[in-house]
């Protein structure tokens, strides 16, 4: 960590807020971001599940796709039904490669005259180059580096945000509304990466510190860092790009078949369709599953999964400690024959074989606002 040159790191528009809140800054996806604040990951995690936390996710890539039929154009790169996505609605989907692997997972919102995209920081360059190249002449992409993204997550998120924008209370999960918060025009979606109710607020960078400081000054709100973001999303069973999904994992293997709509299954027309449609029909050789170690020892990414005879059947892709579960949790890929919930498996940690079980995801029930 000491060898990272901080001068080469990009700065979040909220850097001054992180410093003021004594965030422990680390390099992440080319940015200098807080991994935690003085209270620590456990406290930040639990606060998010019980009250509401503010996360800086400005490193996420934001872009706007315009074109006469931008939704149809983008459908040539993802397997979801974007043409059926109503204005003001958001969808989770994946950019696939020609082998059916996942280039990135992303959120797409129909904003009426354009599509708004939010992609992973580490994949920005790859994604945007891919979209521009493949959609040339059909749609144009504007990358919005001048916007910050603030996530307000937790059961009291709506209660807090409604003080500044009463309409926030009525936004449904995966819907988007343009709201004015403290005279700043914001694009607010009811979404997040914690499994809790909450919002992601896209704001012009120059107003980001004002909005963040305003929200943090509310009694219920505490800042939370990347550490809590990771433990919260793992408990929620959500994939982390580059770990649980990558260019070699297909949406079917990753348990993301639900993003592939009925019409797209019938019509195809997305990269890697041959592989993906075949797997939808015949099943895949491996599957992403939840894995619960039976003892207290956490199994981390890279730990091998074996069957009861000691034969290797897969690998952990995300693993650690679940603060709300109060024990170790993991997810990873196993051969489909061993993917059934309740299957006993072993995890190899420091050359020891530890008992574990395939379990249903998520580890903590989602708490989304659907009206």
């Amino acid at each position, binding site marked *: 960590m000491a060898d990272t040159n901080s001068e080469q790191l990009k700065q979040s528009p909220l850097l001054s807020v992180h410093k003021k809140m004594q965030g422990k800054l680390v390099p992440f996806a080319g940015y200098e971001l807080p991994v935690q604040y003085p209270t*620590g*990951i*456990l*406290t930040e*995690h639990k606060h998010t599940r019980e009250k509401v936390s503010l996360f800086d996710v400005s490193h996420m890539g934001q872009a706007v796709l315009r074109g006469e039929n931008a939704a149809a154009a983008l459908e040539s790169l993802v397997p979801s039904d974007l043409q059926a996505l109503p204005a003001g609605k958001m969808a989770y989907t994946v950019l696939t490669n020609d082998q059916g692997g996942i280039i990135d997972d992303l959120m797409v919102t129909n904003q009426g005259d354009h599509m708004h995209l939010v992609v992973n920081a580490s994949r920005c360059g790859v994604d945007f180059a891919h979209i521009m190249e493949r959609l040339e002449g059909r749609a144009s992409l504007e990358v919005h580096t001048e916007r910050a993204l603030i996530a307000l997550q937790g059961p009291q998120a709506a209660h807090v945000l409604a003080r500044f924008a009463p309409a926030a209370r009525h936004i449904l999960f995966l819907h988007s509304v343009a709201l004015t918060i403290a005279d700043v025009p914001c694009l607010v979606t009811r979404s997040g990466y914690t499994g809790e109710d909450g919002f992601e607020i896209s704001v012009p960078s120059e107003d980001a510190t004002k909005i963040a400081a305003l929200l943090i000054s509310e009694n219920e709100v505490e800042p939370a860092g990347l550490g809590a973001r990771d433990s919260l999303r793992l408990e929620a069973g959500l994939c982390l790009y580059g770990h649980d999904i990558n260019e070699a994992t297909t949406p079917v293997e990753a348990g993301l078949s639900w993003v592939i709509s009925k019409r797209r299954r019938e019509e195809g027309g997305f990269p890697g369709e041959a592989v993906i449609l075949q797997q939808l029909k015949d099943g895949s050789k491996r599957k992403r599953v939840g894995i619960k170690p039976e003892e207290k020892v*956490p199994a*981390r990414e890279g730990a091998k999964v074996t069957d009861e005879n000691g034969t290797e059947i897969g690998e952990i892709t995300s693993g650690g*400690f679940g603060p709300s579960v109060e024990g*170790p949790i993991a997810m990873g890929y196993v051969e489909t024959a061993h993917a059934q919930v309740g299957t006993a498996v072993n995890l190899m940690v420091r050359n020891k074989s530890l008992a574990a079980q395939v379990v249903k995801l998520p580890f903590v029930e989602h708490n989304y606002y659907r009206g």
Partner: protein
Amino acid sequence: MMATVRFTKDHEWVSVDGDTATVGVSDYAQQQLGDVVFVELPETGTSLNKGDEAAVVESVKAASELYSPISGEVSEANGALEDEPSLINSSAMGNGWFYKMTVSNTAELDELMDETAYKGYIEGLD
């Protein structure tokens, strides 16, 4: 006689009283680790050479190793850490100790830092 406390560059501490040593991680180390959620301790009777991997500390984010600051035989592991690993965060230099050992060569202590030298060392890291 007062116990002698020494520190390693890897942020372990060892407190030696006669031929019995108590080993743990420094307050600086626990701050760097963050919330500790699990500890794997050496079994009683284990022979350790100075620098051997002796224990594993798991925080929410990652696993880290504790290397024995001194050679000897483990005489007791701190069982309290099994139920309450957060003792390492709340009391790194006290109740959060990892294990005790019978020291084979107290001369090894001379290669370690005393508290003043260690303070200077961690100031140089920030």
